[in-house]
């Protein structure tokens, strides 16, 4: 490996070093609070390091590929993970007495991120599969992190079993496609596929493996149970980072590898989009537990994302990446507030939030901004994200679908506003008392707030994404 190759892979390599350093620190440092700080510092370095100059190229005979878009996307993920690390530090600090191994949490978390990195940069189905596994297995362990909490264990079991099934089906799908196309390279598959029932089944099976991670209907059932039981930071990670990584590689697969089957899979995407939006929204309507509520809301959001897949062009790619970048902040903000409140009071239900604005105005404002962004209300960033998704779908004439999406936005607005109303307008005999979050939580919520307010209006960001969204030569 020469220097050039090292630079190509530098994000993966550096993250590996971070993981190793965390391992060493876990052995050497006995102070748990110090471990939190080390993890934050190391990951901050990783985040900053990601912004150095971009190299494009491939390694290992095309098994690993990287370009401006993957670099940018990894940076977006880094920022998201950094915010989650901050929130995790807050969570771990609070539960120091019950938690034995603080360092482990970060090692496992970073390992999963490493898996997502490889998944994004995969040029070959083998790497893709390995990355997928590496990303989900550690996170199942993390779901069980609250050993003292039975729900946490239940979540972990459900996640690992569902993941096992999904990865089995995924692998089966790859096998079928290989049998048909005769190659495992992502780029080579296009054009070598026949349109038989055989290859369609392979395509659907492979798709369902990723749909599982994105929680598209009907592969979404694990989502709510896992999100509810797992530690909030882990749910947060699953709902944004893991989902975003899977969406990215799904875009590459559909637009590059399975491009010749576009006339088939567009029906599938169309149907699943409609189904996902409706199911996510209908279930979200009835939830009392905020983590379950956010789980279904994140399912519905996934439906909006897949809508833009139908455009099969540059606008589709850029609008999805842009939406994901904004969605990461919105969801991390919402989960962060839930975590902040739960850490101090243990309450997770919507009714408990009544009168929150009177006692904790700042936290309520962050909650409101995040939910508005998820709902897509201007001028918060989420509006612009959704707007471009609509544009992408409408540009190829899917007006009916855009209409359905707008209907769903209206439904979603209803339940997001239920939460906002509880916090701002409802009065309560016993509201959540005033609390002070620690510096980690405050920092992460502060960054989220700024991002939500600025990202939508700061146009060069979208322009940049549009410029680099050339994964295929359209």
């Amino acid at each position: 490996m020469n220097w050039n190759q090292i630079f190509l892979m530098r994000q993966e390599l550096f993250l590996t070093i971070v993981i190793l350093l965390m391992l060493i620190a876990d052995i050497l440092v006995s102070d748990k609070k110090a471990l939190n700080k080390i993890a934050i510092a190391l990951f901050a370095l990783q985040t900053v390091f990601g912004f150095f100059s971009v190299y494009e190229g491939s390694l290992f005979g095309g098994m690993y590929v990287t370009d401006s878009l993957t670099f940018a996307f990894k940076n977006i993920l880094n920022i998201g993970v950094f915010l989650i690390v901050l929130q995790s530090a807050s969570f771990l600090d609070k539960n120091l007495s019950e938690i034995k191994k603080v360092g482990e949490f970060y090692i496992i978390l970073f390992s999963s991120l490493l898996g997502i990195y490889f998944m994004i940069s995969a040029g070959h189905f083998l790497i893709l599969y390995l990355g997928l596994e590496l990303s989900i297995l550690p996170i199942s362990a993390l779901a069980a992190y609250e050993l003292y909490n039975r729900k946490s264990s239940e979540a972990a079991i459900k996640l690992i079993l569902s993941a096992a099934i999904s990865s089995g089906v995924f692998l089966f799908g790859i096998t079928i496609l290989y049998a048909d196309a005769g190659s495992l390279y992502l780029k080579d598959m296009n054009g070598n596929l026949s349109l038989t029932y055989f290859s369609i089944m392979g395509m659907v099976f492979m798709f369902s493996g990723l749909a599982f991670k994105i929680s598209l209907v009907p592969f979404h059932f694990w989502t709510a149970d896992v999100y509810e039981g797992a530690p909030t930071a882990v749910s947060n990670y699953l709902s944004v980072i893991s989902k975003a990584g899977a969406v990215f590689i799904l875009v590459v697969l559909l637009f590059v590898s399975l491009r010749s089957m576009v006339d088939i899979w567009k029906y599938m995407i169309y149907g699943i989009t409609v189904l996902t939006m409706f199911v996510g929204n209908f279930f979200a309507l009835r939830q009392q537990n905020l983590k379950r509520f956010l789980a279904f809301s994140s399912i519905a959001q996934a439906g909006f994302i897949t809508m833009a897949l139908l455009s099969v062009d540059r606008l589709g790619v850029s609008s999805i990446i842009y939406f994901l970048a904004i969605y990461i902040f919105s969801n991390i903000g919402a989960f962060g507030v839930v975590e902040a409140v739960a850490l101090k009071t243990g309450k997770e239900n919507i009714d408990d939030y009544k009168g929150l604005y009177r006692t904790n105005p700042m936290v309520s404002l962050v909650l409101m901004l995040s939910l508005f962004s998820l709902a897509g209300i201007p001028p918060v960033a989420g509006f612009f994200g959704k707007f471009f998704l609509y544009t992408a779908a409408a540009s190829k004439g899917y007006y009916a679908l855009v209409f359905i999406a707008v209907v769903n936005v209206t439904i979603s607005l209803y339940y997001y506003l239920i939460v906002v109303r509880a916090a701002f307008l409802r009065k309560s005999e016993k509201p959540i008392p005033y609390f002070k979050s620690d510096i980690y939580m405050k920092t992460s919520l502060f960054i989220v707030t700024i991002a939500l307010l600025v990202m939508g209006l700061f146009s060069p960001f979208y322009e940049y994404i549009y410029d680099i969204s050339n994964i295929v030569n359209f």
Partner: protein
Amino acid sequence: MNLNLMILIPLIPLAVFLLLGIFFRRIKEPVSGYIGVAGLTIVSLISFYIAISYFLDFGLVNGEYQKIIVFRSTWIHFTDNLKIEMGILLDPLSAVMLIVVPLISWMVHIYSLGYMKGEGGFTRFYAFLSLFTFSMLGLVLSVNIFQIYIFWELVGVSSYSLIGFYYKKKSAVLAAKKAFIVTRFADLGFLIGLLILSYFAGTFDFLTLTNLDFIQTLNGQAVTFMGLSVITWALILIFMGGAGKSAMFPLHIWLPDAMEGPTPVSALIHAATMVVAGVFLVARLFPMFYFIEDGIALEVVAYVGAFTTLFAAVIALTQYDIKRVLAFSTMSQIGYMMLALGVSGYGEHEGLGYMASMFHLFTHAMFKALLFLGAGAIIHAVHSNFMQDMGGLRKHLPVTHITFLVAALAISGIPPFAGFFSKDEILAAAFEHNKLIWFTGFIVAGMTAFYMFRLYFRIFWWNDPEYKHKPHEAPKTMTVPLMILAFMAAFSGFIPFSDFVSTDYSPFHTHIEWGLAGASVGIGVLGILLAVLFYKKENDLSDRFARAFGIFYKWTFNKFYIDELYFFITKKIIFKNISAPFAWFDRHIVDGTMNGIGNSTVWISEKIKGLQSGRVQDYAMYFVSGATVISMILWFLLNN
């Protein structure tokens, strides 16, 4: 010369607004004022430097002023053909505004340190003032018509918040609402107009829209609607937006009420800057107005302007609230600018009206801001808006008295003050093109002199009433801006404006038409003499006069009952006959449908709850069967 500096011109006020707006509880009086003044000082210095060096140094290349796009970036990218850009355009028009807007805003910022002292909401006041300055600068620097529209609405919002600044006073709240609704209604026309225009022209960009060849191609391919080209309709609709902001008849009704805002706000927004936005807009699109279908739209501009100038001047004759007199006077003067644009031609000397309009915009900003700030100092001293409560103030307020006199002379068109030069050019241009419009302007010149000196004598001479609190001169922070503006009002007429602004961007020479100028000075002096006769000493001449005119006086005093007419149309006709049935339909049918959908949504949600059983084996089954069923459906679709 680094023009990138210009990006700071709108951004500094924005930063000040955000700072004061976010930390308005932490930053106390007078620190917020100092922050505002400091920001505006920097902005003004940069603007003056750039504007002056543009005119004297780098702007003129080969006898023509350059249109420089200093900066432009895409804000929203819909498709490659349709995108919204933000940027900064530097040309003579925006350079003139770069002197007017920051200068007046700067003066008002300083003045308000004294005027708003001890009033509640000091920081809020400065925050909104900065927001307004940001929006106005963004407006005048716009590179395309969509950007101008965005900032157009922003100045509307800041104007709304500042008119309603005393939000505990009911009349202020109502006035703010009225201003917002009336201008918003006009802006609807603007929006429709700009959409029509951009649809047919295929661009928002000013440089393209004002390109003469481009206009000719537009002329050639225009679709007609009711006998006129759609582009003409678009321009008339755009002018409707401009008429709303610039208080042209019949969309003027908000401006007098807007005087409920603090006086410095009236000086900045409702006299010198925002209300001339309509004039600016027409000037920006002037080649279109002139060349599309031989200037039919421009004729509309001319007649609306001419009518408004007369109409407002007549009303101003009878008002007692000094701020309202000034408000109607503002309307009348903006009417002047509009009619000047309306009678202008294109090309060197032909474009005299255009140049005169901009010239008058410039001088008017100076003396009208001065009049308002002077009125503010007077109100500050006697705690009343009504001239019946005033008199003999020249002894108590010496600085205000002198500066007010300078402004009154300037607006009356007495040489050598600024108003003389600009008004003379306007009348000269009107005389060449349309004698009727010239005659209107000529009569209004006399009326202007009369009502201004009525105001002046009534405030500063008349009698010496017993004041409860002895009036005292305003503090330095208020008098210094007055003096600076008085200097401008006195001498800015000597600026050779035609060297800088012209329709075709190349300088030309003008000379004073002594015959016409003599006539208009004559009628001005006549007006002043009448005012001396009526108001210098306390007497009942004016009351007898009013009685003699009876019904006509009453009509004028009540502003020709235009407000009442609006009330009749909106309340009695629109609300009752159109809105009420719609409201019924909305409440019973639309809401009923919506509630039905809402209930059924909840019902479905209840029914499908059982699917989420919590058992992993179920989930696995759904997973695998889901994948299989999808494959089968797709296979089925493929075979059909």
